[in-house]
């Protein structure tokens, strides 16, 4: 056990799985970086933000495959390779680039198993960066996991910390279905204690990162961190929050969510994906349908506005949910002092 960054945790999961299973290969743009370059340094980058650094050096060109800039062909190749015996981990550098290869994800890998009557397995992972906060503007800052959660046949993982990232990525690589693994680009340098050995975190099991009986806070990915911070500050005010990190949006641990709601009857959902048909809507609808009798207040959603992600830092920081907005939302539904559990 030692302190590792989100970046290191992901790198370690990849390395350990590649050592364990020779069928695991990495595919992507500059996942090594430097092929054909005049310096003869075939691993200059190890990914645009250095996440796959060292893997080319250890595993060589047959296991770490740099690609031309042509997402449809290499994401599709990952699907074809998965259906024929490899277990690829493909990198879609930014999830915003899904527009260049959605068909291979939506109509090919996601549907093989069903269309082919259960006779295909497509064990692959697409690692991809998401999220605002980097001043990367409208085409490099989207969250977009709702698109993937919408598509039957895909599993969708949004790890909220280094520990989560390692365990969930190992699980993703071992899973026999196509998995989309969302890495928040702002979190790569976040650190926490992460075991050195391999471990996996099962899909569809939410994690309670804070417990408190007044309000249920559900948050996705980086928003878990903010929700925790909000919960800690609210505790000082005497409002106890249970924070739920669903970990995977598909499959979704509906049981844990509904249990917590049964306890608190008050719900705030924090999500950085666009609001319409987004993740917060999905969770809210689940609760409004299945836990209606438990609800003591309207379900509140803390989300970005229905706009593209703006460039200017002043606007971007208004765009993404922040701790203050979470706190106000919780206060607006929290029970009166007398009824509080905490």
């Amino acid at each position, binding site marked *: 056990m030692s302190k590792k960054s989100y970046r290191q945790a992901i790198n370690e999961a990849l390395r350990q799985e590649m050592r364990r299973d020779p*069928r695991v*290969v990495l595919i992507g743009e500059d996942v090594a970086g430097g092929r054909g370059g005049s310096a003869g340094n075939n691993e200059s980058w190890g990914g645009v933000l250095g996440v796959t650094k060292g893997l080319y050096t250890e595993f060589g060109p*047959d296991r770490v*495959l740099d*690609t*031309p800039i*042509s997402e*449809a*062909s*290499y*994401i*599709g*190749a*990952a*699907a*074809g*390779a*998965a*259906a*024929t*015996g*490899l277990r*690829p981990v493909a990198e879609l550098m930014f999830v915003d680039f899904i527009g260049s290869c959605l*068909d*291979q994800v939506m*109509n*090919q890998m996601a549907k*093989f*198993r*069903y*269309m*082919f*009557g*259960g*006779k*295909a*397995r497509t064990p692959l992972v697409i690692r991809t960066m998401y999220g605002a906060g980097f001043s990367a503007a409208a085409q490099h800052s989207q969250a977009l996991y709702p698109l993937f959660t919408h598509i*039957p*046949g895909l*599993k969708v993982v949004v790890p909220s910390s280094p520990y989560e990232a390692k365990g969930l990525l190992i699980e993703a690589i071992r*899973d*026999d*279905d196509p998995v989309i693994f969302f890495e928040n680009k702002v979190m790569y340098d976040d650190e926490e204690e992460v075991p050195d050995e391999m471990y996996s975190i099962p899909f*569809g099991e939410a994690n309670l990162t804070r417990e408190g009986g007044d309000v249920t806070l559900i948050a996705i990915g980086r928003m878990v961190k903010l929700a925790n911070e909000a919960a800690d500050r609210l505790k000082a005010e005497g409002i106890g929050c249970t924070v739920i990190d669903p970990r995977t949006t598909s*499959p979704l641990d509906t049981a844990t969510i509904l249990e917590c709601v049964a306890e608190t009857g008050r719900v705030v959902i924090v999500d950085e994906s666009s609001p319409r048909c987004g993740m917060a809507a999905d969770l809210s609808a689940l609760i409004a349908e299945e836990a209606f009798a438990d609800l003591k207040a309207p379900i509140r959603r803390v989300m970005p506005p229905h706009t593209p992600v703006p460039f200017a830092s002043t606007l971007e920081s208004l765009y993404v949910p922040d701790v203050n907005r979470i706190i106000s939302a919780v206060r607006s539904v929290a029970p009166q002092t007398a009824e509080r559990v905490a």
Partner: protein
Amino acid sequence: MSTLQINRDVMARSYRAMRTIRDFEERLHIEFATGEIPGFVHLYCGEEASGVGVCANLTDNDTIASTHRGHGHCIAKGVDVGAMMAEIYGRKSGICGGKGGSMHIADLSRGMLGANGIVGGGPPLICGAALSHKLLKDGGVAVAFYGDGASNEGTTLESLNLASVWHLPAVFVVEDNGYGEATAASYAVAGTQKARAAGFGMEYFECDGTDFFDVYEVAGKAIERARRGEGPSMVHVHLSRWYGHFEGDSMSYRKSEDVAAERRDRDCLVKFRNRTTEAGLFTADELDSVDQAVRDEIELSVRNAKAAPMPEAPDLLSDVYVSY
């Protein structure tokens, strides 16, 4: 003219496969008209020698990806005809349990990675299958079939490049039947397939898709190159489509004489029969008895398909995930 120096078994199997495709498709044409077959059906009639000529160079250890016009490729790759017919009728006994239908027939155990409802869907997959063959060192080759129309899809073009960059054991077979739906290749395909192959650093071969022997030999060269680790190639197959784009299309964009002439002069089965009987490789009787066996097989497959039960409620929810 291509040689007849082919193993006699291969020839016999190939003739049977071509005849099976022809009868399968002609029968679907009739059955579709009765309204009993649901969905979109695209017939491969007239193009049999292409799929069969290519696949005669392959074994179950090799992989192919197909298109919306996939029945011929499936049969050529050895997929069970009865299970295919049942699938097209949407029966539980179908090769995909009735969940796929005509456009999604697949049989991975035979190296058949699926028909595909998406034009240009197959070539990227074939890069991946070729990568598997290469890295797993199983000696296999992966072949993408795609149409002249599909040759304009970005996915196809990117795949040509990727296959070259990765030096994959892959073959890209352009089945150029002159039309994508109702639009002629002469309108929609700028430049040439040959120059496109060069544009992506790839060997180019071409052949007459109505001559089994030509396809077999030419595709064989490309496939053997790939097998030897010499990289990918494009095989441009010149063909003609005998029916409408899909069942229901009256083909008002083509002169009916064109199609009639194709059927008269470029029937791969007639060509095969003439050449092999003239060369004394098969007797007319031998081929006739294959024809009869195929007729019986198709008849049986339709009868069984019609009699088979439909999938039921629990089938709706199964097979989405391996585990969930």
